[in-house]
């Protein structure tokens, strides 16, 4: 990952920016029923362990290139993304097949309520994080650059 970020730094023009956006595994996703104009929370959906490990590795890679002085963080934030489902069964199928999440939600409503609303429309509310980073390019005089370039020696 760090190698990829160094490559990205290489292809960015001075003043160029890198935008890193991905699901925020630090925030638990929610399974919600559409209720009129609002939502009723039905369950919580955790990220699976392997994805958590990958996300932490991505965080470390970003931290590494910041430490190396290749990038500077300009802005970061989080927004919610709603994935719509036509029924509770469709949401369950999604969880079963989607590699990112654990396969079963932790329901916060009882089974009777789930059965009663099984045919209602649902959403999965997931947090997406983003960070805008600007590439830091050293302005090295061309003579100095030539002197430090092994291909020129």
């Amino acid at each position, binding site marked *: 990952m760090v190698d990829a970020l160094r490559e990205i730094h290489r292809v960015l023009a001075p003043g160029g920016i*890198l935008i890193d*956006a991905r699901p925020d595994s630090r925030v638990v996703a929610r399974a919600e029923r559409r209720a009129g104009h609002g939502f009723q929370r039905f369950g919580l959906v955790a990220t699976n362990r392997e994805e958590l490990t990958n996300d932490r590795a991505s965080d470390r890679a970003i931290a590494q290139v910041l430490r190396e002085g290749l990038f500077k963080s300009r802005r970061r934030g989080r927004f919610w993304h709603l*994935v719509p489902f*036509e029924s509770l069964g469709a949401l369950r199928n999604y969880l079963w097949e989607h590699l990112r999440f654990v396969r079963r939600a932790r329901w916060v409503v009882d089974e009777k309520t789930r059965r009663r609303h099984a045919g209602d429309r649902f959403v999965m509310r997931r947090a997406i994080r983003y960070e805008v980073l600007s590439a830091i390019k050293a302005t090295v005089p061309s003579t100095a650059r030539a002197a430090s370039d092994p291909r020129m020696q």
Partner: protein
Amino acid sequence: MDVGTRVPIVSSSLRPRPLDELRAWGGTRLIRGKRVLDVGCGDGRFAVGLAPLAASVQGLDPDPDAISAARRNAREAGIRNVRFEVGAAQQLPYADEAFDVVILSWAL
């Protein structure tokens, strides 16, 4: 459209729409008139969505099937300033300082 019988469960259509995501990051000014590289572009959903705003968009993905789908999607959308290539982020097949913006959308 809701996921179920009409939208496949594994689909890039389940991700935020490109312009919605761009708005959350800070708005269209981030890419307007810029040379953009979308690393890990998959089926080109994001690259094709942003292309009308950018000067040019290059999409890169290690999966040849995804790149074929991306080219097809761009053709169907009538987008001409986007190109797709198979390749790895660890060895980008581009010249130094070739882009103004690089996007890692759900790719790192």
